[in-house]
């Protein structure tokens, strides 16, 4: 306070500007530093062999094929479950009801679910899927756990996308003799598709990067998974174990690079879709 009183506003503004500028630089540089380190150390490790061979000797040798396969399938299971639930919820909230205590309860549920830490999802998936339902450590257990985790994201993005569809389209569809369901499937969903896809891609990114919820539900077997009941190790889990146990830093960097590049690609796609979609709407 006293400092502020002594300084001329112009001087104060100059000082603040310098502070803000340096803080912003620090924030951006740190974030970029992480990216650069991973890519600089990881990219040299990448080769066709790294991507197409299974890990050997706990990952000291060989590639990461089985972990890529596991990641893809786990994500697929998660989306197959979460997408219908999420989009269905969004359709109900926007097209089949008016605001009421039910919608408030539903939204509250989704918002709380979004805030639950992944380790809790992991605990829950472990008890329910691995133990009670006897799926064991498996891609099914992991996929279902991830589905629950990404559900709020899909609900929120789908709802936003559906709300952005002009009201006039609905009126026209009804006036041409459509039922509500026909209106939803033939007019609303096609128009909202880019937004819905955005949410799905966002969820893919989250599933790929998740470790805590997966390690206790899908396990960490290094074999190439053969069925949904196989235990499997995703890229994130593999990377975690290799880094934590110090198995092989070069291979860990390589895995991290694949992980980060896939996620960045996914996020860039999402960003592009969102921009395009929003620009089109405006």
């Amino acid at each position, binding site marked *: 306070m006293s400092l502020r009183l002594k300084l001329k*506003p*112009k001087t*104060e*503004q100059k000082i*603040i*500007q310098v*502070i*803000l*500028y340096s*803080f*912003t630089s*620090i*924030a*951006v540089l*740190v*974030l*970029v530093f*992480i*990216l650069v*380190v*991973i890519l600089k150390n990881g990219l040299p490790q990448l080769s066709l062999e790294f991507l197409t061979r299974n890990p050997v000797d706990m990952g000291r040798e060989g590639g990461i094929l089985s972990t890529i396969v596991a990641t893809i399938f786990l994500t697929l299971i998660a989306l197959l479950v979460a997408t219908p639930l999420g989009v269905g*919820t969004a359709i*109900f*909230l926007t097209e*089949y009801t008016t605001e009421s205590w*039910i919608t408030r309860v*539903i939204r509250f*549920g989704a*918002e*709380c*679910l979004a*805030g*639950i*830490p992944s*380790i*809790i999802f*992991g*605990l*829950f998936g*472990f008890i*329910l899927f691995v133990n009670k339902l006897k799926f064991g450590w498996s891609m099914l257990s992991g996929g279902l756990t991830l589905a629950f985790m990404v*559900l709020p994201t899909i609900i929120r993005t789908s709802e936003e996308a559906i709300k952005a569809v002009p009201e006039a389209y609905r009126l026209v569809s009804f006036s041409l003799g459509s*039922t509500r*369901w026909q209106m939803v499937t033939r007019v609303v969903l096609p128009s909202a598709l880019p937004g819905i896809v955005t949410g799905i891609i966002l969820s893919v990114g989250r599933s*790929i*990067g*998740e*470790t805590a919820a997966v*390690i*206790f539900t899908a396990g960490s077997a290094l074999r190439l998974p053969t069925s949904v009941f196989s235990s499997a190790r995703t890229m994130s889990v593999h*990377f*975690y174990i290799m*880094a934590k146990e110090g198995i092989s830093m070069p291979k860990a960097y390589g895995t*991290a690079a694949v*992980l*980060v590049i896939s*996620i*960045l690609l996914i996020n*860039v796609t999402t*960003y592009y879709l969102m921009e395009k979609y929003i620009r089109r709407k405006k």
Partner: protein
Amino acid sequence: MTPLERNDRLIRIGLLMIALSAISILAIITVFIFEQGTPIMFKYGLKSFLLGRDWYPTEQSFGLLPMIVGSLMVTAGALIIGVPLGLASAIFLTEFSHRRLTRILKPVIELLAGIPSVVYGFIGLMFLVPFIRENFGGPGLSVLAASIILGIMILPTVISIAIDSIRAVPDSYREGSIALGATKWQTVRLVVLPAARSGIVAGIILGMGRAIGETMAVIMVAGNAANIPDSILAPVRTLTSNIALEMAYAGGEHREALFATGVILFIIIMILNTLANVTTARQRRK
């Protein structure tokens, strides 16, 4: 009722069932965690869990106080580091920088929100931990390391939500203040930030939730000793790490005690969620 109306009603009921999935999942998770975790808390007494300092789970000693304190310490540390950096970046990018710079940097920052937490933890382990050990002493694996890594991890969240809420302040506010002869910074401090406050607070609470719930990154840099740290250079174990570190081999009461850890974490998170909901609801009403 015509067949069409009947059909419509069936679809509506079907969709309602689907729409109840999120809240049902929330309910099931709550029930499971509490069902697994509370019996042991009552068996040995709530007090010994919440205030006990000794965690020897194989010898019926389940004191979670070190982990509760640990979680609160690293979360507070993350906020001390992440909030000033994040807020300053958001203010700079919205009010003081060229539009073009903001157009480039905001997406970059948001993209970085997608970097998996294990990667943050790994970078912390490779660079930050040795740096702390060599320059400040101690094992390096510490409250400080965990706080810094978590502070960086919440940056994208804090920045992007703060930018959105600062942008939502109408330009007429700024023009009014500038017209009265205020400098840009005075305008920001006296007009813009107060108007954007609840949005910014909601972003901070979200970041706080992310910090307190983070597991893998913390495990990699925190050292994980189940003691109340006596300095920021001492190792620390959080509630989340406690679960993740021992889950793989725990059985019997040990496992139940890990679920009890989950219960406490769950309650803390729910309180934060409710706070965030209340603040955003207040923002919306305005």
